[in-house]
């Protein structure tokens, strides 16, 4: 169920502004791929093109090709809604549905599909919360609002919500940036566990985190203000952090950037 993603020559625009240009890469299934790079280089933009969330923004569009296994994500016969059911996403800031209970938050995606029975829902909610390392903390208050959890718990709730619909790919945009070190570790453990079943892509500004959790790392950069961001290099994480091919990558990871 984990799937490979193949991106070729991808550009993404906001109106007339080209945010990323000429991105070509392969993302392997059952592994963690980290995106690193300076702020504004288009990591989030690129991530959002992978589940067609980019086009949700007015005026935003994409050129190029993305294959999920053999399926062309931007093919004319592809419904973006179905793409987003296959490629799940966790956002930088935890965004549980504030009017829904913890249980309903996790079940929200399941109910969209509409073909699950009550007992199935119960089982999936429980297993998703367990997978997200949250079950023990919330099992006694599943009917309480999701907004009443701590930030770290909310983020794990969002992860549970995303994996409840059983996606093939899980995209995470700086999932730990709003969290304390302990919650961060909990989520990193979770990522390491989840990669056995999913294709995981994570954007992070934390070099140690990228080194800890990812198998492959992609470094993005932009030539200058107003220029589109580009993929500088992508390789095994150990190689990127010890012996990168590009000077820019080395400068960035050693902090000699700019």
């Amino acid at each position, binding site marked *: 169920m984990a799937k490979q993603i193949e991106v070729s020559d991808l550009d993404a625009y906001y109106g007339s502004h080209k945010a990323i240009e000429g991105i070509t890469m392969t993302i392997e299934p059952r592994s963690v791929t980290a995106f690193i790079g300076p702020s504004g280089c288009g990591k989030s933009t690129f991530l959002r093109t992978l589940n067609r*969330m980019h086009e949700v923004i007015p005026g935003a569009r994409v050129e190029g090709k993305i294959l999920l296994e053999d399926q062309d994500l931007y093919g004319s016969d592809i419904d973006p809604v179905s793409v987003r*059911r296959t490629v799940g996403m966790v956002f930088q800031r935890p965004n*549980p549905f*504030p*009017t829904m209970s913890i249980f309903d938050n996790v079940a929200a*995606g399941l109910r969209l599909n509409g073909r699950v029975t009550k007992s199935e829902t119960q089982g999936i909610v429980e297993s998703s919360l367990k997978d997200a390392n949250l079950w023990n903390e919330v099992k006694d208050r599943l009917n309480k*609002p999701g*907004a009443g959890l701590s930030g770290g718990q909310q983020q794990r709730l969002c992860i549970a919500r*995303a994996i409840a*619909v059983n996606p093939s790919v899980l995209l995470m945009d700086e999932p730990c940036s709003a969290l304390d070190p302990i919650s961060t570790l909990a989520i990193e453990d979770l990522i390491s566990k989840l990669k056995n079943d999913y294709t995981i892509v994570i954007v992070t500004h934390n070099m140690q985190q990228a080194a800890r959790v990812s198998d492959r790392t992609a470094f993005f950069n932009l030539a200058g203000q107003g220029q589109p961001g580009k993929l500088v290099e992508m390789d095994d994480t150990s190689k990127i952090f010890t012996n990168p091919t590009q000077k820019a990558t080395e400068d960035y990871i050693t902090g000699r950037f700019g």
Partner: protein
Amino acid sequence: MVTPLRTREGGPATGRPAFRRSRGEGPFRFATTGAGILLLAIMAAIAVFLIVKAVPALQANTSHFLTEKIWTPNSTKPVFGIAALAFGTVISSFLALIMALPVAIGVALFISHYAPRRLAGVLGYVIDLLAAVPSVVYGLWGVIFLIPFMKGPSTFLNTYFGWIPLFAGDAVYGKSILTGSIVLGIMILPIIAAISREVFLQAPTSLEEASLALGATRWEMIRMSVLPFGRPGVISAAMLGLGRAMGETIAVALIFPATFDITFKVLSANGNSIAANIANGFGEATPIGQGALIASGLVLFVITLVVNTAARLIIARRKEYSRAAA
């Protein structure tokens, strides 16, 4: 030579010495407190005046004010009661709300989440414009166009849906509670739509993206993220609309049949409302009659208050869930 400024609590020095600020505070505080007290005093004076006017009439009444249906306060033996009028006010306003609310929510959602930006701007402007049309215009439209027009649809409802108590009755009329309710509904629609649209536009992008990323269609996104977020606002808008419908005077004074009956048969030539009765009756009223009308106005005030309180309770009950997402 300039000496360094000192502040009272050791905070950073501001542009002016602290004593200046506190000296300026005096008149300002006096002015705001004074304005507040004045407002309360004026409201109290109005209330006292109305009650003083109403009490003699209530004493002269030879029937029970709250249960009596008849309204003949100008006769030598005054008989009047609020029952039929209050009933008419409530039923016509709720009918108006039931008709207006779904349409208003639909219009608001269309403007906020479906229409292309240009069209949304134009529509929003039109709605605001409609909300500003004086009610007498709606009333005249009701008299000139809707009363004759409603004869057909009313007959249809009576023939085929007469088994529903609302549409029952032996004869149907254009000048009916239903026609008045439709005019009221059209009147309150723009205000409900305008407020709802504002609320829907404020739905956080993060919540909308949360549902889209789960694979929600646009309508599912609206159901999961926009409507729950907008619920308290829509309830407030509906209550505001309901309040307007209950208090509306001139439009319904032109349309309601102006009889004093309690009936659910909204197609019949029966029914009235408190506000319409005041508008129709105040001119020829004796002092007792005026007092009676003022008493009815106080009842209208109480009804509006009850409705508003109920709305607040509904909103408060969901507070725990409504804390907006971080």
